[in-house]
């Protein structure tokens, strides 16, 4: 397959698809910057939107400066940028997630449904290994974890369907963080007062998975379920 050509229609994500997803996610983060800041202001320190925006802008620049040769390379560039240039909790956590995803799909030229599931699961495992959060702690894990489960369950339905399922599950997980009392991250300092607010990191996770779902559905047209 010639570089630049997309094979998502066939249910496989190319390097360019990954790059496109990163570019779109950067745009989404930028337009949700203030919302993420406001969510973080309520139970944290009002910087999550800024951190993610700074990180994703840098990631896009890094991908442009040094175009990746494989999905894994693209993911690794994003990972390294987030880890080394963002700071805060989100930088190393998202960074590790991307890094583990990259490692998990290291030898693939394009990503099929199983690769995507493997990548998502590796991302979650990386996140948990760094942050030690469990489901219910009111963190991004609450969005990632159901997303991975849903993706795995829908793996047989192709990339577009599985990421659509993952996005739905992530959004549900995101919403489910609202009543929780935080046990990890900055919101945990508020104790009971953290309840009643949606977690910013779970929100940025749900946004990420929705970008993947939208992109995959565009690329696949309506045959998402049949790839």
């Amino acid at each position, binding site marked *: 397959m010639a570089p630049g050509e997309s094979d998502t229609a066939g249910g496989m994500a190319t390097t360019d698809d990954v790059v496109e997803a990163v570019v779109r996610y950067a745009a989404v983060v930028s337009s949700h910057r203030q919302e993420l*800041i406001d969510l973080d202001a309520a139970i944290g320190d009002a910087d999550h939107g800024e*951190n993610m925006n700074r990180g994703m802008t840098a990631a896009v620049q890094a991908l442009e400066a040094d175009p990746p040769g494989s999905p894994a390379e693209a993911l690794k560039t994003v990972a390294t940028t987030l880890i080394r*240039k963002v700071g805060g*909790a989100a930088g190393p956590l998202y960074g590790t997630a991307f890094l583990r995803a990259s490692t998990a799909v290291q030898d693939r030229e394009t990503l099929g449904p199983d690769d995507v599931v493997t990548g998502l699961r590796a991302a979650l495992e990386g996140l948990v290994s760094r942050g030690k959060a469990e489901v219910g702690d009111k963190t991004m894990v609450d969005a990632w974890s159901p997303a991975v489960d849903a993706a795995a369950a829908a793996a047989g339905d192709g990339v577009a369907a599985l990421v659509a399922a993952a996005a739905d599950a992530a959004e549900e997980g995101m919403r489910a963080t609202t009543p929780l009392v935080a046990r990890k991250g900055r919101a945990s300092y508020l104790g009971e007062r953290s309840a009643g607010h949606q977690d910013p990191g779970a929100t940025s996770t749900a946004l990420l998975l929705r970008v993947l779902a939208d992109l995959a559905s565009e690329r696949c047209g309506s045959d998402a379920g049949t790839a």
Partner: protein
Amino acid sequence: MKKIINDPENVVEESLRGMAMAHADLLEVHLDPHYIVRAGGPDEGKVAVVSGGGAGHEPLHGGFVGYGMLHAACPGAVFTSPTPDQVEAATKAVDGGAGVLHIVKNYTGDVLNFETAAELAAAEGSQVEAVVINDDVAVKDSLYTAGRRGVGGTVLAEKIVGAAAERGDDLASVTSLCERVNANVRSMGLALTSCTVPHAGKPTFELGEDEVEVGIGIHGEPGRERLPIEPADALVDRLLNPVLEDLPFESGSQVLLFVNGMGGTPLIELYLAYARAEEVLRERGISVQRRLVGNYITSLEMQGMSVTLLRLDDEMTELWDAPVHTPALRWGR
């Protein structure tokens, strides 16, 4: 939002440039990535002490770089822990061959980023230890949570540990001293007003004209409870009592009492609060041996204060008294 800034994007960098100009005799300020080291290169054969964290807590940490205190400080974006790149660069710049101690405040981001930096620096041959400061009694400590925050105790740890490094203690001793300071220090803070993060553009929280947030951290995080404002003496008691109970501090204890302003509270109020705090300690038979009053670990323009109590032993007292020459703390030379 009303601040003396140009562009929220550049606040940290432009402020660092000012520090560089104002303290050219003491500091070398690097802008890519951001870190501050003592002028004059690494101290060969001495342990180097490095700290850092989000900007917005000035003079912490950059104001504590200099003789007898920190060798380097890494300021992140406002309220955002620094990146591993910054910490790694600072660590390598000050490593004089005897190892480097990272003093890290206990926040998820700080801990993760310093961890990564330590791994990177170790991979390049630096010997790195880290101590995580977690002195904030407003936060319930537990194995299942992020644990206590690092707040005012950090300033005291940096001074005392910096003095030990200055006199030539080895990395293991400096590290265990830092752990001892952390084990013996407790803090708690409150806010009368929120701060405004420059890139957020509006106050992190809104407080009524008659309300205070008790149990706040240093990032404009809301506190544990919002209460009607009370007279200063009652506010001081609200901070001091949980601090006293926690360690506990007992009759006969020798302590350092640190009344810290959150950035927007003037000295006249801090001294007034200090009087109450020392009085309470005297009544309890606790002997205040050393004192610090002022804006040392702040939350931008937040009005409020924190109280920190450190149980001293002879060595800590001697190291506290040792000469220090930094932009924000200076004595003995």
